[in-house]
């Protein structure tokens, strides 16, 4: 399998992961899919970064996912991954929106490349715009801390992917790393507060 094919598969899985996080409300599944999302970002970002630098994003992403998983586990909020849940009408609605967002990012990428980001590849633009749109939609429609943080992380991943194709700066990479880790910390803080207030 060529590297290009691998990247295309990674982009498809990436958008699928973001869609699952938008549609499904199953905490352990969401965290697992978030981790997988970072693996796909790593594969796509290899186009513009050396493997060593790209690995930073992968490691940070996996750490973020692990932090959130640990906090959910210690709060006793993890259900079995295989517990069956019926699709709700909300999930069907969000699924339709997810399809629409994938379609928008796929169709808009060539035009955006032509008019704004000529140096970025179409695949990278599709992936980054898709992530940003999914993140925005999730941030705009959900107030539950875990999903909001996942939305913000998705949005930032999309932006980091886009910005990586435009400019490289070690300082900025360090800032993005700090932002992602701090966001996971803030998310964990919110989840704990949420659990405490429910228990109290």
């Amino acid at each position, binding site marked *: 399998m060529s590297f290009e094919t691998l990247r295309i598969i990674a982009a498809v899985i990436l958008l699928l992961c973001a869609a699952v996080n938008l549609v499904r409300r199953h905490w352990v599944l969401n965290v697992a899919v978030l981790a997988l999302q970072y693996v796909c970002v790593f594969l796509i970002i290899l186009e513009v970064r050396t493997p060593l630098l790209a690995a930073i994003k992968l490691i940070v992403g996996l750490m973020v996912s692990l932090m959130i998983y640990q906090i959910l586990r210690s709060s006793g909020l993890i259900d079995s991954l295989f517990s069956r849940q019926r699709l709700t009408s909300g999930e069907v609605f969000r699924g339709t929106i997810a399809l629409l967002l994938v379609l928008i990012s796929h169709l808009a990428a060539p035009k955006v490349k032509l008019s704004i980001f000529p140096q970025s590849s179409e695949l990278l633009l599709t992936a980054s715009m898709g992530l940003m749109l999914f993140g925005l939609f999730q941030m*705009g429609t959900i107030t539950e801390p875990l999903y909001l943080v996942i939305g913000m992380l998705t949005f930032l991943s999309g932006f980091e992917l886009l910005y990586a194709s*435009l400019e490289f*700066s070690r300082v900025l990479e360090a*800032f993005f790393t700090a932002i992602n880790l701090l966001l996971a910390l803030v998310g964990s803080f*919110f989840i704990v507060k949420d659990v405490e207030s429910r228990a109290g």
Partner: protein
Amino acid sequence: MSTPTIWIFLPIAVSILLMAVHRLHKLSVWIAALSSLLFAAAAFIFPQDLDFSMFGRHFHFDSTFMILNRSLILSASQLRFVSLLYFFSFLWNLTGLQFSTSRWFPTISLAITALWVSALAVEPFLYAAAIVELIVLISTLLITPRGEPASSGVLRYLVTQTIALPFILLSGWMVAGIESAPIASALVLRGTILILIGFALWLAVFPFHTFLPMLAGKSHPLVFGFVFLMQQSSLWVFLLKFLDQFAWLRNLEGIFPALQWIGVLTLLAGGILASLQSKVNRILAYLVMTETGCALLGIGLIAQGGGAFLALSFLPRALAYWQWSYTLSSIQKIAPEVDGSFDSLRGLFRRLPFHSASLILSMLSLLGLPAFGIFPAKRMLWNIGAGLTLPYTPLLSLAVAGMSLFILRLLRALVTPEPNTPSSSLLIQREEPAWQIILLCALTLFSLLMGIFPHLFLNPFMETLGAFSELMPPN
């Protein structure tokens, strides 16, 4: 040794040290307050050539600190503003002893101050957007109320500020090397729109302000006052930096009138929404909004002297915020049954006359009432704004009228007792400690002195924005 080491890395080191002693609340408050005062005083008196001799030895400080091929530059002309930021940190930490805000307040407040300084010092300055995001994330730990889940205001704040980050970073990339491009080219317009949207989200200008009252209603008044005073003051200066460094931006036709209109509309929205408020806790949000409106109007009028308004208003505004936050926090400590609603404030003047008067006076001070500290700056702004364009005058008047209406409603609530109150309890009851009465009177007196003798108290701050030589050429 370099200036960024002193005013960025040293405070961060102190902040990390404070993490270790955060359980010893009094000690950490004192360390944070005194170190902030020390940093403020040092920045205020530091020589302009960054050279000085002490004990027979000569010291020279570099203004640049290199890190990963990028630099942090803190020139002598920026130190006046740095001293203000640390002074604000000192003021707020000083009150931390009295109120149970958060055990982490000293640590985080000092870190936030150092990060704001670094945001103003980092080169390329667009990277400050990432630092602002870090500050927002740290601030959410403070503004989330204790023992309660994260409110929708906090979440909305986090989201709004995060969305601003790509706008600012992309604007810089988009217009890199644009100096030679013709003005009003598509690229310039695109870059300008990105910058304006980014700042609109950061500064919570109308209509992106919705999280402000939600946050103010839930957070501790002191914490809210501190976080947003630092944020708005630093972001105004950051906006000036954009205008100063990007010639294409400041030369773009219509950019300054656009800023003026954004300012006037935010001011108007703040004034009108304040007039409809019935929760006193939330009013600080509208004060933040109106002050942002004034500042944007001032920046829009920079060529007519708006810069002087900004420079003169930093200190009196901070003192008024502090007085308001302190008084409200103190009222809620003395009378826990006061939940901020007008009903709970009824007749409070008889129980806490000095606190009630302090609430009203701090608002009047922010409104720009003659003789108060911010009056010289506000008078300058009203005169320039109203004299320049006719439509501004009624809109500014409406905004001031809205805020005045709220003050009158608050005054009525404070002095009007409950209808079924027995006549014996209508007498003034003394529930305020003497030292608090002295403190509140001293604050008001200081504000009056600043207003009456601005040349003594405010003129030293005229140099605060001296770093922006392109935008405000020295006379």
